């Protein structure tokens, strides 16, 4: 296909050509960034979390008397354990994605400070089974460690042992065995010995602790105390809802004055990410509508100049151009315009990404988003031009002989 005549004709229609280029460029820029943001949202909502998410239900307890909390918790846990279908029960201070976070900084070197917010999980005896933690190295806490676990005056764990996430173990002791290593609180330099490493458990409030703290979780043993205000119930997923209901009845009788709030873990997770999911939906909707508007714009403008050039097309047909020649002419023209638009759009998309990186919490867009955006706009342009191009190709040669 000879492109010189196309360029010559485009020079005559500078403004409509420029408009198509601009529209494609803008659509490309917005599309790339929107799709990138959708992907980021979805990656966040699908974050892996090495606990038995489907089997866990939680009851949040409020209003227990602080002085007698230890007795109440022991009694409540015994009652919960006897609910048919329950595999494990325990008490815990907070769960991954619970927004009720207990954060601290930790460091393998007492001389250093930590800038990362690590989530602290305090679990009562059996907590590892109730959560479904996956042990990769070392061991879980023993009965003695659970019984001795308490708080120091600075509200740190007074037990001398800790279990860490795999990600943290690799970050703190790269290339070494984490077992037996010392870990320090960055505020008052309390020390703990690492006795186990578990598959990565999410942070208590990853949006607050940021990307660095997303998989920074530590587990400490704690004897029954008022800080453990959530009961964990683990059962087979099909029993979960019934177990939760029966557990609520049992607890309601034992603690008539307490405030009990039941929730399954899957609901808790869904609630935490509800905002991200909605954002993703809204962005997707905007993208679809924007592509539709762009396509309609291309159809409108191309039909207009096909209409303007009816007699020209007729003459070309009369002097020997075939149906396919005319069809290809308009397709090639659109391809040239799309290419210019896409080139401009990619630069614009990149610029927008840099602006967003500086002003919002957005990371760098990988190059393939730009590539995918470019290809989809090329395809969109070709699709949109098809109908006007077919109409142009259908212009009969006889038009050339008529005035107009």
């Amino acid at each position, binding site marked *: 296909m000879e492109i010189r005549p196309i360029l010559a004709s485009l020079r005559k229609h500078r403004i409509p050509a420029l408009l198509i280029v601009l529209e494609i460029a803008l659509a490309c820029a917005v599309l790339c960034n929107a799709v990138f943001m959708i992907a980021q949202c979805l990656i966040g909502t699908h974050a892996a979390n090495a606990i038995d998410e489907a089997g866990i239900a939680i009851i949040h307890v409020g209003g227990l008397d*602080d002085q007698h909390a230890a007795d109440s918790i022991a009694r409540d846990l015994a009652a919960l354990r006897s609910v048919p279908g329950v595999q494990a029960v325990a008490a815990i201070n907070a769960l991954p994605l619970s927004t009720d976070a207990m954060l601290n900084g930790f460091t393998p070197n007492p001389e250093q400070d930590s800038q990362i917010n690590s989530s602290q999980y305090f679990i009562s005896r059996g907590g590892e089974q109730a959560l479904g933690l996956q042990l990769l190295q070392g061991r879980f806490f023993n009965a003695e460690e659970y019984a001795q676990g308490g708080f120091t005056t600075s*509200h740190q764990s007074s037990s001398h042992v800790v279990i860490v996430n795999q990600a943290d173990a690799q970050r703190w002791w790269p290339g070494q065995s984490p077992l037996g290593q010392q870990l320090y609180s960055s505020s008052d330099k309390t020390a703990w010995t690492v006795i186990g490493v578990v598959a990565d458990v999410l942070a208590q409030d990853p949006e607050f602790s940021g990307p660095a703290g997303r998989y920074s979780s530590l587990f400490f043993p704690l004897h029954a105390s008022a800080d453990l205000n959530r009961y964990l119930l683990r059962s087979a997923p099909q029993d979960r809802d019934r177990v939760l209901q029966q557990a609520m009845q049992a607890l309601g009788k034992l603690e008539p*004055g307490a405030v009990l*709030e039941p929730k399954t873990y899957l609901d808790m997770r869904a609630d935490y990410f509800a905002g991200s999911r909605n954002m993703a939906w809204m962005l997707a909707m905007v993208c679809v509508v924007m592509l539709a508007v762009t396509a309609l714009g291309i159809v409108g403008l191309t039909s207009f100049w096909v209409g303007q050039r009816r007699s020209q097309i007729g003459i070309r047909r009369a002097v020997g151009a075939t149906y396919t020649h005319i069809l290809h002419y308009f397709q090639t023209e659109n391809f040239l315009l799309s290419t210019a638009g896409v080139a401009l759009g990619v630069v614009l998309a990149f610029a927008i990404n840099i602006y967003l990186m500086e002003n919002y919490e957005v990371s760098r867009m990988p190059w393939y988003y730009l590539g995918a955006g470019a290809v989809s706009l090329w395809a969109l342009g070709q699709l949109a031009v098809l109908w006007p191009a077919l109409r142009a190709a259908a212009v009969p040669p006889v038009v050339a002989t008529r005035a107009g």
Partner: protein
Amino acid sequence: MFGYYLDLAVRSLRRSKVLTALMVLAVALGIGACMTTLTVLHVLSGDPLPGRSGSLYFPQLDPRDTVGYVPGIEPPEQLTWIDGMNLLRAKRATHQALMTGGMVPLQPAQTNLDPFHANGRYTTADFFPMFGVPFHYGSGWSSAEDDSKARVVVISTALNDKLFGGQNSVGKTLRLQEADFRVIGVLGDWRPDPHFYDLNMGAYADYEEVYLPLSTSRDLHMEHDGSVDCWGDGGGEQAKLEQSTCTWMQFWVQLDTPASVADYRSFLQHYAEDQHASGRFARPPTMRLRNVPQWLEYKQVVPSDTRLQAWLAMGFLLVCLINTVGLMLAKFMRRAGELGVRRALGASRRALFGQLLLESGVVGFVGGVLGLLLALLGLWLVRQQPSDYAKLAHMDSAMLLTTFAIAVLATMLAGLLPAWRACHIAPALQLKA
């Protein structure tokens, strides 16, 4: 002339229905998306207490140890108990209130209601006059109740409806954390958004249902919720928060004149210097005194998602407008013949230009009406979302007018280029054809 042009515009738009529909739709979609996000942004960045927020100030001090200190670092966003109490007792402002929040277990007297958590605010007497809180029944408490750790409570209208059927409940008893409280006031309609005085509980979250004296809440060991930031050997243990090196209190003061603001600033600076000299503040003395708008700006309280969405919608509107420019150009150029005749008959360029612009204005108006409907639909969709601010997303009259203004202006702007091109065609060339 206007009527005649309007008639011409409507006739011309009717003639090419598909093209007109495309233009109107593009404008409507762009305006709809844009106005939905702008309305959310407008609602979220509203003034929580119009008329008052400029004279309410939030003092900040830096009592932390030297770990992690860099010159110019911002002080913590809350106060310790000790500093809060010192500033409260100094009484250097017209009004001052120290506060924090927590979930209070509430045991209803009615047997058909299970115990539940009520969102609580533990504060001091000036809270109500300082923030201009309206009362439906009764009133707040005085500093005498603060001093005596009185078991009195002020409740919200919603809670009053739930527990007392909306009756005047002043004097009735409410059981909180296994203790009896006397209801002394029921709030009127009060909901400043964002929840500026304590952003830790969610800037647009549900409002407090019970308000009680801070001293009473500490006396009864009521649960504290919200952010607790500790350093050194400070721990977040609830019962020892008064003594620990942790910031967890909010403190607000009312300062009515610039002179009183300057006085308070120097008072705060002297306070920080004294504490540094006595060795309590390890860092070089520093302080901040921000009023409500400055505080909201500093805390970047409008979610960045919302701002991103507004940008995205603007980009979308731009795409729609460029699209409209293209379609309008096609439409006007197609009528070159008709315009040529009018020029030949003596119509000036200016007259043609005006007529064409009016035509694009009509498209903008119709697009605006449709866009408004789309924006209302969009806001309805936003309200179905589970986020805290979702239920606030309503359009007010200012935004309604803005919608029309933007729609008509943007479309007329989009019509400028096509109209200018169309009225510069040579009449003779068109007449010949």
